[in-house]
């Protein structure tokens, strides 16, 4: 009984770590630009595919290919923001929804044309490796992803607080007009932020690639979860993605173990609904409400 409960919590925390890893970029982009990026899942997909192709053609381990995914996604995000999304910044929110939804469809469909709709999987010598501690099972790939989530949150926090560019990003997020008056190149800051968000999302896609099924159309379900995680943790509050991810992961895991798997999916949306009605600023009360 005790073991089952402990195992459920561990599963939930590891699942939450995965959620947090791929939601951090979503939170960053929303927090700075106010853009709900509906093409977020496609960034995860591109990160996972970067690892998949490097593994398939060069036998490069997914963890070693993660930096490539980050660089590729940073450049991709930077260009997409600078030449596409910048056009709707400052316009009504609906414009960014339409634009990013269009991007989601476009990227997914181009990926289908290029790579077909096959489901793909990376199987390495350590795939599925797990440790048994006191009778509890710990899948190692998920543990690594959990640690990546912690690291990403910490590095991002450090970057935003302690570096010149980070301060410029925070200044832009707080008041872009004043930031502009202080000499901040807003458009460039937006492009860097989106690039950064895309890079950490690509990193998550890459580190998740050993244990998820990769396909061009995988993105949407991740976007939905990322949205729930970020609402739960507080929109735009960076550590919120970690807290939101962990809470959602544990809630889903408890529901799957003690109720059933169907409820574990439904509970995501029940929590989302309750949060939006009762506490739109997130569990920690530090999110922004547009």
């Amino acid at each position, binding site marked *: 009984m005790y073991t089952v409960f402990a195992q459920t919590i561990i599963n939930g925390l590891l699942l939450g770590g995965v959620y947090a890893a791929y939601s951090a970029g979503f939170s960053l982009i929303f927090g700075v630009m106010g853009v709900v990026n509906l093409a977020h899942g496609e960034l995860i997909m591109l990160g996972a595919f970067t690892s998949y192709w490097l593994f398939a053609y060069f036998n490069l381990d997914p963890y070693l290919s993660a930096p490539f995914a980050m660089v590729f996604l940073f450049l991709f995000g930077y260009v997409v923001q600078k030449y596409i999304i910048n056009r709707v910044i400052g316009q009504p929110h609906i414009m960014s929804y339409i634009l990013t939804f269009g991007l989601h469809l476009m990227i997914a469909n181009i990926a289908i044309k290029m790579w077909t709709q096959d*489901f793909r999987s990376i*199987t390495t010598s350590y*795939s599925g490796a797990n440790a048994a501690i006191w009778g509890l099972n710990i899948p190692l790939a998920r543990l690594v992803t959990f640690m990546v989530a912690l690291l990403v949150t910490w590095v991002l926090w450090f970057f935003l607080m302690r570096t010149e560019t980070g301060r410029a990003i925070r200044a832009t997020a707080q008041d872009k007009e004043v930031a502009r008056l202080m000499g901040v190149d807003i458009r460039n800051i937006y492009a860097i932020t989106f690039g950064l968000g895309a890079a950490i999302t690509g990193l998550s896609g890459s580190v998740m690639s050993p*244990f998820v*099924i990769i396909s061009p159309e995988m993105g949407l*379900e991740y976007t939905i979860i990322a949205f729930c995680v970020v609402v739960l943790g507080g929109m735009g509050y960076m550590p919120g993605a970690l807290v939101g991810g962990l809470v959602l992961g544990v809630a889903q895991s408890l529901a799957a173990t003690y109720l059933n*798997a*169907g409820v*574990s999916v439904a509970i995501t949306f029940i929590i989302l609904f309750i949060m939006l009605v009762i506490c739109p600023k997130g569990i920690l009360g530090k999110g922004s409400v547009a």
Partner: protein
Amino acid sequence: MVLKSFRSILIVMLVCFLSVGFACAAQKAAWKIGVAVSLTGVFGKDGSLVKDAYTLWQETVNSHGGINGAPVELIFYDDKSDPATTAKLTEQLIVSDKVDLLLGGFGSSQLFAASPVAEKYQYPLISGGASSNKLFERGFKYYFSTLGKATEEVRGCVDIFSEVTPKPKTAAIIGADILFTSLACDGFKKYCQKNGIEVIHFELFPMALQDYNSLLMKVKNKKPDVLLVGSHLLVAMKTIKAMKEIDFSPKAVAFSYGPTVPKFVEDLKGDANYVIAASEWTPNMPYSGKVFGKASDFNQLYIKRFNRRPDYVEAAAAGGAVAQQEVLEELGLKPPLSKENRIKIMEALHKDKFETFYGKIQFGADGANEAHPPVAVQIQSEKLENVFPLEYAEAKILYPFKPWKER
């Protein structure tokens, strides 16, 4: 001078009109066959297999002079794995494209939506990728399936356990909560009871489930001898990944669908070994017919064309196309088809028995193929082997499942 130019223009226009006229006449002479099939979305991969099967059938038929002298022209539309879109596209094929005939796409939910449209317009609709029992319980006359019913299709996967020692005593059944897979789970349950295997866990889950680990951990804690999964390809791949991650090694694991799709073994590699899957056809079966020759010939042709072995659903889809072709040849019909002709085709499909590379096809009054025995295959050394029924078995079943830690 002006008159000469005018005459030249007239001649050119006349030639153009005639060319268009001939082209139209040539188009009318072809069999226009429409297929609404999932090429994107969750069944995109499965649907593209069905498309490959029909494409090979079309190429084979056309290379032999077509059907009754008329070539086959296929029109594919992507239903994006959405049943409502399947119904809409089926109507579009009939009303706008004015196709002569239809062929079915993939997925019970999709065919469940498409078949009422075919019934309404009196178009025979043969599918090789849908087998839910509910498809056959509506009293439809125009819907046919070359697969057996979903609950029967999985029988081989359970019956095979009567051949192993020690015989499993308990089973856990899980599956995606959609039409085909939930019925496959019912089939697993039915044949577990018939074989004296106690079902200690039964759970359906939504396709959107991301976390298979928690669900399977719960199942693992109940220590079932075998795990039976109502699945499509994606569910099957996710299940294997999760089983390995949580170190869950029952004595056997069997899936209703997925492992027979070549991608399953290609990407999961050695992790796919020992997996059992339901099937209705393998290339070693002693079947033969007119269009493709023997089952093994069809297999070779497939490898030559697509550089891979066909899945049984592809064989079933091509088998359906062959049955329809044989009826057209028997009735001596030519395109375009009238409503009366389509009624005759429907009646002939109910009445005739077909000997094909896919085996015997005999549609019952409800449209299900009654002549097909269920098959179980197992992945051994990263290769699909027919393990049941025993008279067609290529290899002996490997039992029990080798624990993950020992691989």
